Structure formats: C-alpha cells, structure tokens
C-alpha cells in the first residue's frame, strides 16, 4: 500500500463521502468516534477509580472491564451500521443495473414507434395515430421513471455529475413555463412569473436546475383541483438567488410534511388526486440543490396549497 493510499484511508470524512454516506451513517466515522469515547471514558474511569477505590488492582480491573464493555458495544453498533451501508450500496447498484438494462428495450420501443409514426414505412390511418400516440406517451413515462431511478442511484453513490456554467435562471424559468403552457391550459391553471429586475447570471449546472424547476412546476400544476393559479417568484436574497413557486392546489397534510423529501413518498391526498408519479421528484430536487450549494424548503396547508422554494448561491 502506497503512502498516498494510507493517507486516503486515514481521511475518514473523505472515505464517507466516497461512499455517499453522511458521517452519522458511516462506519469509519462511527468507529473513530467510539474510539474517542472509549479513551475518554477509560480515563474518567481511571480518575474516578483512583479516587474512590483504594487497591490499585481493583482500579485497573474496573477500568479494563469498563473499556472492554464499551469496545464490545462499539463493535456491535459499527457492525450493524456496516451492514446497513452495504445493503444501501447493493440497493443503489441494483437500481443502477436495472435502470441501464431497462433503457435499451425502452430505446428500441421509442425508436420503433417514432419510425412508424413518421410515415416512412407507409401512411398510417388517423385513428392509428391516436393509438401510436398512447404508446409513445407511455414509453415516455417509463423512460422518465428509469431516468429518475438512475439519478437516484447516482445521488446515493455520490456520482451525480455537475457541469457548472454561467446561467441566467430567468431564461430557464421562461423556457419551462412555455413548455408547460399546454399542460397548464388543459388543467385550467394559470402560471404567473414575477421577477426582480437585473438579476445576475450565476455559476451553476443549468440542466440540473432545469430538472429541479421542472419537478416543482409539474407538482404545482398537477395537484391543482379543477382550476387554479401558480405563482413563480425569482429574486435576490442576501447572497443567494431565491426561487419560489406557490400553488393553490391540494396541499400536503401536516402529518405527511416531514416525509415530503423522502424517496418514493407520496402523500395520501395526492394519491387520491393523481395516481401517476414516482415520488422521486422532490428527493432528487433537494439532493441537486444541496449539491449546488443551495437550500430547499416548503410550507403547505392541506386544501389551500403549497409554496416550495430554493436558493442558489450568487457566487460559488
């Protein structure tokens, strides 16, 4: 083992990051922490022992037993976390393999439908177009789900790629609003955009931020009953750009709010309103924004609506 490798192994936080784990889920960090606790507790046991026990043999034995007990507890805790981390890693790897394997037949399906719909193989009848459209839409939905699963596996493996460049967020928002106009119109939803003048460009990953705003806009529009309004706000706040999206949709029940950013979570009232959706959008959005150095949050009231927001640093 080279000296560089030894130092890399000693860099506990680096090791945890490599496996995509927070320190409190990382076996190396927990073992290190337990080591410190054992040393400190042993020293305390020694000082207490020398003060209250007269025979030095008993002091030594007490300290030894105490240290041994703590060591056994540390090993048990760390081993269970190791198993947890390993299961997590295997799960991410499984998702990654499955997603890649699903992508190929989906590409075949998508391209075959496109070829048929293009008319290159002969004219297709009007009512056939409708059914090809259904096939196309559904293969598109499956592709989106697979793509989301791939992003999740990258987030968990800490390999989500970021390509930062100078970006005007206003352009991204406008682009997405026009993309959503048809869907919004069909759902009787009006989208309004308020923006502070002369906002600067920021150094961020436009495709990832695009994905975040798309998720938020999709949720805001999708979960409005009958008709409603979505208000988007973009402004400067302290050293950040602040994005906010407010809807008057179904809202999130109080008891579900703590789970909103969890993977695969879908609120009960949302399931009644809309059965489609993977419950991955907000999990992905939070991971992306945090990786870009920002923060994300929301407030919501059932039957009144939700307001989601995120910030991105003006300078990074």
């Amino acid at each position, binding site marked *: 083992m080279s000296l560089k490798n030894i130092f890399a192994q000693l860099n506990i936080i680096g090791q945890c990051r490599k496996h995509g784990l927070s320190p409190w889920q990382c076996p190396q960090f927990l073992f290190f922490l337990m080591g410190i606790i054992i040393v400190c507790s042993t020293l305390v046991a020694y000082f207490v022992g020398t003060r209250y026990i007269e025979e030095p043999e008993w002091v030594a034995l007490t300290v030894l037993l105490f240290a041994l007990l703590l060591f056994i507890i540390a090993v048990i805790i760390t081993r269970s976390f190791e198993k947890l981390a390993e299961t997590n890693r295997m799960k991410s790897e499984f998702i990654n393999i499955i997603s*890649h394997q699903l*992508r190929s037949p989906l*590409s*075949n399906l*998508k*391209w075959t439908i*496109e*070829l048929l719909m293009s008319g*290159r193989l002969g004219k297709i009848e009007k009512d056939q177009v409708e059914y090809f459209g259904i096939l196309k839409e559904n293969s598109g939905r499956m*592709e989106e789900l697979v793509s989301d699963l791939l992003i999740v596996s990258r987030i968990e493996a800490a390999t989500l790629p970021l390509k930062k460049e100078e970006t005007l967020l206003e352009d991204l928002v406008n682009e997405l609003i026009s993309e959503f106009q048809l869907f919004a119109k069909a759902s009787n939803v009006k989208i309004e955009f308020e923006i502070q003048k002369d906002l600067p460009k920021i150094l961020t990953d436009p495709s990832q931020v695009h994905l975040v705003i798309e998720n938020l806009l999709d949720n805001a529009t999708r979960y409005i009953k009958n008709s409603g309004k979505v208000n988007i706000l973009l402004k400067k706040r302290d050293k950040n750009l602040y994005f906010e999206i407010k809807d008057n949709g179904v809202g999130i029940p109080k008891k579900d709010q703590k789970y909103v950013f969890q993977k695969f979570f879908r609120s009960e009232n949302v399931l009644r309103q809309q059965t489609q959706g993977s419950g991955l959008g907000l999990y992905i959005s939070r991971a992306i924004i945090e990786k870009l150095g920002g923060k994300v949050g929301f407030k919501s009231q059932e039957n009144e609506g939700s307001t989601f927001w995120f910030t991105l640093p003006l300078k990074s």
Partner: protein
Amino acid sequence: MKKILFIEDESALQKTLGEILKQEGYQVIQALDGEVGLRLANPSAGGEKPDLILLDLVLPKVHGIDVLKNLKENEETKDIPVIVLTNLAEIKDVEKAIELGATTYLVKAEYKLEEVAEKIRKTLQE
C-alpha cells in the same frame, strides 16, 4: 453510395435506424458483436472500409471501448469517424470514448431517431 458500419447487438435498433439510413441512400453494413465489427471495418481482414462507424459500447465478444481503441490504433481504420451510440451515460464512459477518438457520443435514451439520423448526416458531410 456512402457506407456505414453499424456495430450494435440489438437487432431491433439495427432494423429501425438501419431502415432510416437505407431510405436516406446509405449502404448499411451490420455487425452484431465487437469481433465481427472489427473485422468488417478493416480491409486487411476482409472488410470494406466504411465512411462512418456507429458503435454501441455494451457488445458481446469485444467491448465497444476495446473496439474503439483497436480502430484508432490501426493505421487503416484510425481516420474513420466513429459515433458512439449507447445507453451508458456515465461521465467516465463519455470521457473515455472521446479520449480514445470518438467523434460524437450519443446516449440513445436522450435522442429521437430523427435526431440521430441528422447527427449521422452532418458527420458524413464534414
């Protein structure tokens, strides 16, 4: 007539994209694995030198990256433009392929059939 060698183990994709390319007037030579692909690209091995190679990465017998490496190391095939057409979208795969000399890297899931055909047309015009 320009010749395109399409190295792809998915016969359904060979058929759909192949159909469009044939309709556009190209001659499409098909290879279902990396070994056959390498042979068909190399005149010394009995192949016909194509004007363009479409290359998948996950291939039987010889992996696409090794095919690309082999093509670029061979004097007879090193100048043939190679478009990588795959569903592997990891940055390390893209970087490796570009570093080895791929002209373009396309992730199948992210492109429409007509967009891929357009990229091929443009590459052949360059």
